[in-house]
């Protein structure tokens, strides 16, 4: 059975891949699918750090590495999320973000788009992408609202954090070779508010979505029987990774908390030296000097905590969510395989039925109604054969689906791992770098003070204080 490029992308969607998406994808037959994915993943990673994100030496190293692998393909779509605004209607108050897109891709009519989107819209996009590509790894969205600490939805920090996460979300999709071609994605970036609302109303209705969910639940209950070894390995890894990253998330948040409390105490410490200097004559200068040093260290500490909160905390949190996404993706893959296995079992049963001696109830009834036993048997055979043929067709489709799902996941898995390594390495590197910077600045403060003490002419004999 020949497969078109469409089928490779997704068996359920009907849109074609635009012609200019990576020349390698055209003219490939099925055997090169795997290669396509692994090649594409190297292409995408190099553009992870776009202009609006801070580049630390670590991330630049990363970028260079992947640029070596690239075959000169550069980023052709740039998205920024900024400018949160509050909207008040009769029913509700909500925040919208400006989404600015600049692109040279031909499937877009214009080269620039500016739209406003709210969180709900992002959720919709994510849902559509996951629906269409159930075993691809879609970068997580920031959470709906922070339960812990009951942060108000319209708090400045909360909005800023969310905005950054939304920005990252869209850019990750833009970097993804398959997801970025999604029609939903294009509409999200380009449609005006009312256009989007209309578009959202299309597509499978509520009932059919319900049907999907029911089927998925049923399959997950059944469970998968012959999961390939590599996916079991991935699942085990994801379990462990999830634990570790959650731990790191908690540890980092604890560090931030302790550091903030340290800062609070430090802020009270400096002034006591100033207070003391008021009672002294000879020592006054020196005491004020110490107070000054402590004050400056306070500022540096504040900056360091800020950096930690802005850089490391969000990344770790993102990967906590990623771990959950991965678990969901693995579950969906399992479900697809489970459905396939279930159908196979049904086929086997039907075959057994067909080949079995006709001592079934149907035959008995048939004879009661006065049917010719020979004819009845023949009719039954024909019916079963028909059903078997139908099943075989369905099974073929499902088999394709399984293989496609597996390949999609395998390809995206490598891509995700590289992406994860890059992100976490960069975040930790940046943190370490900031810490070195922090200590260097504090060192300078105290060394300056010490120097001022030693150059002061003193009446008594010079005491040699070697550090």
């Amino acid at each position, binding site marked *: 059975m020949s497969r078109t490029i469409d089928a490779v992308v997704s068996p359920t969607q009907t849109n074609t891949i635009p012609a200019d998406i990576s020349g390698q994808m055209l003219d490939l037959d099925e055997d090169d699918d795997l290669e396509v994915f692994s090649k594409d993943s190297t292409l995408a990673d190099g553009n992870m750090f776009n202009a609006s994100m801070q580049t630390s030496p670590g991330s630049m190293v990363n970028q260079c590495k992947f640029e070596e692998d690239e075959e000169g393909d550069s980023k052709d779509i740039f998205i920024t999320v900024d400018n949160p605004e509050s909207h008040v209607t009769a029913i509700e108050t909500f925040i919208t973000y400006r989404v600015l897109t600049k692109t040279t891709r031909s499937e877009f009519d214009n080269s620039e788009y500016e739209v406003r989107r709210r969180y709900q819209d992002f959720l919709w996009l994510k849902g559509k992408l996951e629906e269409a590509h159930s075993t691809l790894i879609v970068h997580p969205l920031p959470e709906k609202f922070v339960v812990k600490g009951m942060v108000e939805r319209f708090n400045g920090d909360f909005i800023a954090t969310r905005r950054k996460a939304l920005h990252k979300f869209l850019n990750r999709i833009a970097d993804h070779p398959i997801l970025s071609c999604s029609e939903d994605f294009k509409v999200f970036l380009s449609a005006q508010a009312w256009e989007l609302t209309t578009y959202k109303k299309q597509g499978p209705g509520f009932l059919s979505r319900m049907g999907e969910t029911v089927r998925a639940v049923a399959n997950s209950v059944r469970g998968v029987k012959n999961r390939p070894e590599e996916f079991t390995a991935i699942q085990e890894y994801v379990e*462990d990774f999830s634990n570790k990253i959650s731990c790191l998330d908690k540890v980092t948040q604890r*560090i931030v908390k302790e550091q903030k409390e340290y800062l609070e105490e430090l802020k009270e410490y400096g002034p006591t030296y100033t207070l003391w200097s008021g009672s002294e004559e000879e020592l006054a200068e020196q005491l004020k000097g110490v107070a000054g040093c402590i004050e400056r260290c306070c500022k540096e500490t504040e900056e360091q905590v800020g950096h930690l909160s802005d850089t490391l905390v969000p990344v770790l949190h993102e990967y906590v969510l990623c771990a959950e996404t991965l678990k969901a993706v693995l579950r969906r893959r399992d479900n697809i395989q489970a459905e396939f296995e279930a159908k196979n079992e049904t086929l086997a049963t039907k075959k057994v039925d067909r080949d079995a001696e006709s001592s079934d109830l149907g035959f008995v009834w048939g004879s009661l109604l006065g049917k010719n036993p020979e004819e009845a048997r023949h009719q039954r055979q024909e019916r079963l054969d028909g059903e078997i043929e139908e099943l075989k067709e369905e099974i073929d489709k499902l088999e394709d689906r399984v293989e496609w799902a597996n390949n999609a996941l395998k390809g995206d898995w490598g891509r995700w791992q590289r992406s994860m390594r890059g992100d976490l390495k960069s975040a930790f590197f940046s943190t370490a*770098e900031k810490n070195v910077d922090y200590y260097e600045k504090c060192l300078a403060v105290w060394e300056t003070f010490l120097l001022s003490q030693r150059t002061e002419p003193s009446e008594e004999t010079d005491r040699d204080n070697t550090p």
Partner: protein
Amino acid sequence: MMADSGPKEVAVIGNTDLTSAELDNNIKNTMVEIEKGTSLLRKMEISVAEAEKRTGKNTVNMQELYTVYLIETRPVDALTEGITPDSLWRRYSEFELLRNYLLVTYPFVVVAPLPEKRAEIVWHKLSADNMDPEFVERRRVGLENFLHRVASHPVLCNDNIFYIFLTEQDKDWKEMVYETGFQAKADSRLKAVNAAFRVKNPDGRFTELKHYSDDLQTVLSQLLRVRARVADRLYGVYKVHGNYGRVFSEWSAIEKEMGDGLQSAGHHMDAYAASVDDILEEEEHYADQLKEYLFYTDALRAVCRKHELTQFELEMVALDLACKKQQKEELVTGTVRTFSLKGMTSKLFGQETAEQREAKLQVLEHQLKEGEEAVKEKNTESDEFVKTAWVDIERFKDQKDRDLKEALISYAVMQISMCKKGIQVWTNAKECFNKM
């Protein structure tokens, strides 16, 4: 009620009649004495070498656990000859007794304080238990410091009781101390408080010094408290990083490419977490230096109180003299200038006879003579006290400025060391992350 006509011609109104040149000269002389090496410390090496636990019966005949400290002494030049030091054991209460004796015997001296009896103003990781080896060790250092302070003091170092405390185990030192009768000489607290309230013309410098002591006590207490809290928090920050070490190590087991980098980064996080213990231990030494001066404020106040008491006694004696003079005047002139019971009774019951008056006059003359003697004595006493006290106060001030200046410098040095350690650890960690 007797109106106070103010005895102006007799009492010294607290202001020293030493010129500033004479004051300076006094200070110079003291300095020269120290430099000439008359202080005990120059001749003799003193150390509190060890601490040991003993059990024994206390005053209420109950078993108790206490610590004794080994005091070692040897002549300074003995170092080269390899002579083993003399040694004896003393417990904390004996140190206290010594100090009380010195306080009473030399009230014009700002006597060095003892280290804390119980651990106070500590950050939570430091034990407040008296038996804790770290506390005992810090106390040992504090006691040695106390002995050095006394031994290098130009006046105190010559005290015999102090010398025996250091050198002779056999004699019943405690008995000796009690035999000096110092306890009788001690001023009652009540007397001192009373004097503080009622003194009229204390030397302005002492009043200023008293205020300074109070201020210094307040500010140092606050500073030490906040420092302890800061230390607490710093401890927390460093120790939480230890968790990174553990989790990185576990995580490295499931990663192929990142494994090595994570593992070594984890080690550096462990090192970082562990480094805070040394940092805070060093800082504790700084805190102890500040604590010594916090406790010194008590000694300063004691000297001020003694001055107030002396001045007050002088004022009382002078007042008494003035009263007597007035009485004589009234008797001689026969006039009653102020309302008095005597005046009343004489009006009511008639004047006294000439003989009676003569007798009274004689008694008064005698009392006046005594009174004048007393005033002269008290005056001299007060003068002496002010003079010697102020010399010692200047000595103390110089010592304080020197010591605290050094302490602050050493604090800066500690901070620098901490920063350097931090730079090293995080630079290493950065390298490891880079290899991930």
